[in-house]
């Protein structure tokens, strides 16, 4: 960044203040995370520096032991099914709400995204009491429904955002060219909102993978997910295996972010304003 010749003192102060801020944020945010990763490769049992040597033993423990294997399986099952359900429900809700204009539309929208706003402890408590009545505590189905409820708002929001950029004239164009409403929905609407749907699905999966409060309330011992297992690991017997688990989750989260970024780029490219000779 080069200053124009007439840059004032204020401009320069602002510039350096922003630099210092960035560094501070960096230290408090990234440093703690970066600490974890090398420790997971430590050959000693001690969870602090200096490292004693390189070893993959904690990863062997993570992928090999029965309790972690169960946790991985549970996270995968619950994450996958709740992602599918949240994606379908969220997409249908987004299309329905964005197409029609009906009284109470705003209220319905607020209701549908409320799981994002209501404290998780309360949702967990409510589900715990409700599931107690209908016998869904300590079950895959209960957890999948709970995570569907938590993931659905993300799908709703990302699909709605994509629909805002969607030109409804494309549907009219499709009809005028002879496409039936269903043909137009599948061949014109879906391909154009697909990036939003996929982003929403990623978010829903990440939400389920991350969530621990509801799991703490309603999951039995055989339905422990990865974060739940890490949580009890810390309480019961703190071992570097947890750091290996954390590193694996960080990698998964980073991959999800990468996919999201690629989807965003793709969608931006499709919707980019027209440039041409007659600009």
């Amino acid at each position: 960044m080069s200053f124009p010749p007439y840059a004032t003192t204020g401009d320069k102060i602002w510039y350096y203040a922003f630099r210092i801020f960035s560094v501070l944020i960096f230290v408090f945010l990234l440093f703690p995370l970066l600490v974890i990763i090398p420790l997971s490769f430590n050959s000693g049992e001690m969870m602090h520096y200096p490292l004693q040597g390189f070893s993959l033993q904690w990863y062997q423990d993570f992928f090999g032991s029965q309790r972690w294997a169960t946790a991985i399986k549970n996270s995968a099952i619950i994450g996958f099914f709740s992602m599918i359900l949240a994606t379908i429900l969220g997409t249908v809700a987004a299309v329905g709400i964005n197409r029609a204009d009906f009284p109470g539309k705003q209220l319905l929208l607020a209701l549908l995204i409320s799981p994002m706003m209501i404290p998780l402890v309360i949702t967990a408590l409510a589900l715990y009491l409700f599931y107690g009545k209908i016998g869904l505590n300590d079950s895959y189905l209960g957890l999948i429904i709970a995570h569907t409820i938590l993931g659905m708002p993300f799908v709703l929001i990302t699909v709605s955002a994509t629909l805002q950029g969607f030109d409804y004239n494309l549907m009219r164009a499709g009809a005028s060219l002879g496409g039936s409403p269903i043909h137009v929905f599948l061949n014109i609407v879906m391909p154009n909102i697909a990036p939003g749907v996929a982003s929403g699905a990623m978010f829903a999966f990440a939400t389920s993978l991350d969530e621990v409060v509801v799991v703490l309330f309603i999951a039995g011992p055989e339905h422990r997910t990865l974060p739940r297992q890490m949580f009890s690991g810390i309480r019961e017997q703190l071992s570097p295996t947890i750091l290996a688990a954390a590193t694996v989750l960080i990698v998964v989260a980073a991959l999800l972010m990468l996919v999201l970024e690629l989807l965003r780029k793709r969608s931006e490219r499709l919707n980019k304003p027209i440039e041409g000779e007659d600009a």
Partner: protein
Amino acid sequence: MSKFSGSSPITYKLDTDMTTNTSSQTPHVQFNGVQKSYDGTSLVVKDLNLSIAKGEFLTMLGPSGSGKSTCLMMLAGFETATCGTISINGRPINDTPPHKRNIGMVFQNYALFPHMSVADNLAYPLKVRKIDKDESAERVSKALDMVQMLDFAPRRPGQLSGGQQQRIALARALVFEPELVLMDEPLGALDKQLREKMQYEIKHIHQRLGVTIVYVTHDQSEALTMSDRVAVFNDGIIQQLASPADLYERPENSFVAQFIGENNQLAGTVKEITDDEALISLKDGGEVLATPVKIGKNPIGENTLLSIRPERVILNPTDERIKTLAGDVLELIYLGDHIRCRMLVAGNDQFIVKIPNRAENIGLSVGEKIKIGWQAKDCRALDAV
């Protein structure tokens, strides 16, 4: 249709339900007593009756909110008529969903499918109609060739300029060979130069293919350039339905006179009336001759608004039959092919005279006082608004 001779000899008929010269056949499109209301109380379109002949280029022209787009949308099937019938080839289509109407449509924002290549965009209507691959590919090539875009077949719409997208939208609306094509301000998003170029291209394609085109625009020069007939909309009503030359030369009311082309207005009252000329005394004194058009049965003493085109005003007329008025030159603006002279005439300081800039020096200057006049047939006495 391409033949045209000067101040057109086509006679104007008053009934808006007129049929064109091909009136022996069933009209291709017919609006019959069509009304449209969105809120159930106020009518956006009021009792529309309109027949469009096969192969005609009809333009619906009007300011925004005049009901022209609503009419097009009802014809396309995206809006339903509150009452009345719309027929194509004599068959009512009110109950036909849009995708079964077989009408080509060009949208203002082109509405190309961004996720498909240009070729796939054009192939879409053929795929829906289950036309086999080879024939489809051939028809797509032909349509692309027609709009000179054959080289762009593999591109995405986002990689094209506005004018190129416009051409593709046009080709897509024609590739399945509909007999009727609707265009909703298709050139609105282009810049002036490209817009004029596309006007001629669309006109030529229409002449070559012979399809019926219903075109909506708010740009009067576009309507004049392209159309066989123009329906001027205002306030949900067709104010006048006529050929471009008739609209310009013989507007039926003040709205049309003001909306089509530039126009000077002078208020006055009718003093005398003979066969086809009226003597009008102006508000600020002075008397002029005009053609009576829309004044009452017993017109003497009635108010009227005179309408005279800027290029029909004669400076220092020599013909003795012409009654003259005094004019003060207020401003002269050089515009290349003509000079625009703003004058004070009979109290109106926005009186414009267009003087063609044809080599000979006009020798006018600001502040000068000159005499102006006009042929009685060039000045029309219309309704006082």
